[in-house]
């Protein structure tokens, strides 16, 4: 239970950060990406400030054996560079550049009830589910004999 309350609080603080910084406004993000137009460098300062706080914060937190409210250890993420990383980041960048929304700001902007934001979030969720299906499909492909028999409902 404390983990759930902590996660909700972190989500709210993260959302405040996106709103205050202006990053919930896709036009502001696009104006950062438009380096040959009327460039708005705000996003760079948002990242610098976020990195300044989180790099010090992570370094301090890492000294601990485990989190305050959870039994498992601190998450360790992958560090290697592979083809999916490169291709996936490229595809993500194309989508980001088309609209100026990435997952965090898209979720925050749902509160405006803008139909276009709602549509973007539905498409984004569909893309995530599609990735999952595709991963399952290629995982099963090499050995069709090992594929599980179709599940029987009920």
């Amino acid at each position, binding site marked *: 239970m404390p*983990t759930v*309350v902590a*996660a909700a*609080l*972190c989500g*709210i*603080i*993260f959302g*405040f*950060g996106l709103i205050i*910084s*202006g*990053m919930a*406004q896709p*036009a502001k993000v696009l104006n950062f*990406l*438009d380096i040959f*137009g009327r460039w708005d460098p*705000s996003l760079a300062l948002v*990242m*610098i400030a*976020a990195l300044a*706080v*989180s*790099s010090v*914060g992570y370094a301090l*937190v890492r000294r601990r054996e*485990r*989190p305050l*409210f959870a039994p498992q250890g*601190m998450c360790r*993420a992958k560090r*290697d*560079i592979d083809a999916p990383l490169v291709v996936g*980041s*490229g*595809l*993500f*960048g194309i989508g*980001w550049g*088309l*609209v100026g929304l*990435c*997952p*965090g700001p898209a*979720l*925050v902007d749902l*509160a*405006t009830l*803008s139909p*276009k*934001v709602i*549509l*973007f979030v539905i*498409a984004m*969720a569909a*893309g995530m*589910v599609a*990735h*999952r299906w595709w991963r399952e499909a290629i995982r099963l492909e090499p050995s069709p004999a090992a594929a599980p028999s179709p599940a029987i409902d009920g």
Partner: protein
Amino acid sequence: MTDFTPVSALIGGSLIGLAATLLMLLTGRIAGISGILAGTLTLAGGDKAWRYAFIAGLIVSPLIGALIGLQLEEPRMPSSWAVIVVAGLLVGFGSRLGGGCTSGHGVCGIARLSPRSIVATLIFMGTAMMVVFVSRHGLGM
């Protein structure tokens, strides 16, 4: 157009860094929004409650913010619905294939000096800048 807003950018950015630090300190998790959201959609079984809570916090943050005077601007979106759908699909699929988005790679990963996240961030910023260049200034026009 939008104005350069250095002070609010630094304050907002610090809060994002604080949220990422607190999530690691309290729950041991990385504040990667795409990964957290995808987990609520595709994970079977447990380990979902904290994900729902974080996403819910993010979604209600503008409503709580409004109580303390934080104003969320109406987002300016492109006119084409088709572009929005394609962009949403690419952001969803690409962030999962690449293992993270602006928050997971751009903030949490770079904060740990992960080479993977530095490369990912350079790639998605580069491609996004190219897309904006082509859509706003055209090619050779």
